[in-house]
């Protein structure tokens, strides 16, 4: 092969770059059971504990359902989002720490391909988690008021949420100097999740400051969007807010992640 041929080769099309990086990201994810098993099981364990211990909450006047399991199921999808932050962030931080990021920088790679590729594994894991939670929820006696089409919309919203959180993970991963630093975000994110309507509908939260925070916390609207499909059926407002918040977080986080990665790719 001549040098001229190398020069003629040029940068590959964006779709090829995305395809190959997505393939790597998916392989990397499915080959690490330690990334999949805790991220899928932990929300289910918490669901089981909550459903068993807080069933009496359904007796409160105004509680929207008589099944706490169905009510709490929505929260599992948000916890999956937290694991998406960790997984995506740690993978990217590992790439920068190990020098793999530099290896990719020495190819004609585009930032958008890198971002999309990194999120592919997160997307696949998110789909698997969403399907698992729905299956386990239904087997355990929960139900989806919106039926089968509702289950598909549920998966779509859960996937969007996972991608939004995954994009936050990209920001964390590119800014952290090590995967361990990304891990440090876990408790912060968990507190953020709990300060929402995850355990109780907002109108039933009696403590003012908690209700206030939950009202401003976009997590509440994403949970309520998911929950509407499980409990109410088709609630356009709840779905619009759920999808809207997830899409807004995705757009903002993806923009910041892209700028951060571009900045980190300080090649000339």
């Amino acid at each position, binding site marked *: *092969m001549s*040098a001229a*041929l*190398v*020069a003629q*080769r*040029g*940068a*590959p099309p964006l779709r*090829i*770059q995305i*395809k*190959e*990086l997505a*393939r*790597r990201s998916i*392989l*990397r994810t499915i*080959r*690490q059971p330690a990334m999949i098993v805790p991220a899928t099981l932990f929300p289910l364990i918490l669901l089981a504990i909550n459903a068993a211990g807080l069933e009496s909450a359904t007796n409160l006047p105004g509680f929207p359902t008589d099944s706490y399991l169905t009510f709490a199921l929505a929260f599992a999808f948000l916890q999956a989002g937290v694991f998406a932050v960790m997984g995506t962030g740690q993978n990217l931080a590992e*790439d920068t720490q*190990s*020098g*793999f990021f*530099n*290896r*990719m*920088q*020495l*190819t*004609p*790679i585009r930032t958008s391909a890198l971002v999309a590729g990194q999120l592919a594994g997160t997307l696949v894991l998110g789909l698997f988690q969403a399907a698992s939670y729905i299956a386990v929820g239904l087997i355990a006696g929960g139900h989806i008021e919106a039926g089968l089409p509702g289950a598909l919309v549920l998966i779509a919203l859960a996937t969007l949420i996972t991608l939004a959180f995954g994009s936050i993970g990209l920001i964390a991963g590119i800014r952290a100097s090590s995967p361990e630093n990304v891990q440090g975000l876990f408790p912060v994110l968990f507190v953020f999740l709990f300060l929402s309507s995850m355990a109780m509908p907002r109108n039933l939260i009696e403590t003012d400051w908690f209700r206030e925070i939950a009202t401003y916390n976009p997590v509440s609207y994403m949970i309520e969007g998911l929950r509407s499909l499980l409990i109410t059926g088709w609630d356009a407002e709840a779905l619009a807010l759920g999808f809207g918040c997830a899409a807004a977080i995705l757009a903002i986080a993806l923009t910041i992640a892209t700028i951060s990665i571009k900045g*980190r790719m*300080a*090649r*000339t």
Partner: protein
Amino acid sequence: MEAATEAGAPRAGRADNGIEVSGLAREFKGGIRAVDGIDLEVRPGEIYGFLGPNGAGKSTTVHMLTTLLPPTAGSARVAGHDVATEGAQVRDAIGAALQEAALDPQLTANEHIRLQGALHGMSKRERTRRGAELIERVGLTDAADRKVAGYSGGMKRRLDLALALLHDPRVLFLDEPTTGLDIQSRTALWDEVAHLSRDEGVTVFLTTQYLEEADQLADRVGIIDRGKIVAEGTPAALKAEVGRPTVAVIPADPSERERAAELLAPFGELVPGTPNGAAARLSDGAEELANIVRAFDTGGVRVANVELHAPSLNDVFLAKTGRSLEGAQAEAAEEAGTGEQPALERSPA
């Protein structure tokens, strides 16, 4: 292995695959000048050894030459292209295996080849053919479908080299490629690097902290210390510059170290770097050795060991910086406070 050519004569390299560096500098936050205005020229097809202790500026230089780090002053052209303004063309012409084999432990060698080839715009057929050829050349055919997580350090380095060569680069950067490898893996890698330069005309810019590596492999050597090039030339010419051999005497009783230095002083210039004894660069050459032994006998100092050293690159380093390379390494580790390589060198970005 006979890697170096005589007197650093360049081999028949492909046209326009040299490196020209002028006044290149990189200053980090806090005013730290990791690389402080270096000039060097690597001829097409040559193996250039860039020797220096940890923290000397080797990796920062490589990062600038491979376009991963913009210089703060000076200029550099690699394969005929300016690293600051023609980054894409430089990256197209170079291959690099940087410090630590940058591999994904979850992927196999073949999957790395596929990814790297695709990102370089190689067709499936091209990357399959070239990948298989390189995998065989680095002796990984049997392990090509195994996850990298199970590879030894030597196997990882060899795969790293194969990936750096996949798109047929004209200039190859190897940043401490043999650090941490056993002697067998090290020798195998040296053979491959020598083959690339000798038979394929690839220009090789090799950083190392191993004197032996630079001595055996490089056509020419640049010695860098604290961001500045302190010596440059063929290993033979550099050693000839230092000229005289050194004798080191270790007394049987460590408390007689100073007395040993007194006895050695009349035979030449005392040099540091022998913690348990004394060493001197001999004024009249190796024939003084018998007189030295007699002087110690007459002086009543029992000797545990006497070593005569022909001039080495370490002597060159010592002559140019006043420190041995080993001492400089220890100093760098102490400055880093960890006993390891300073963070600046490990992650210049």
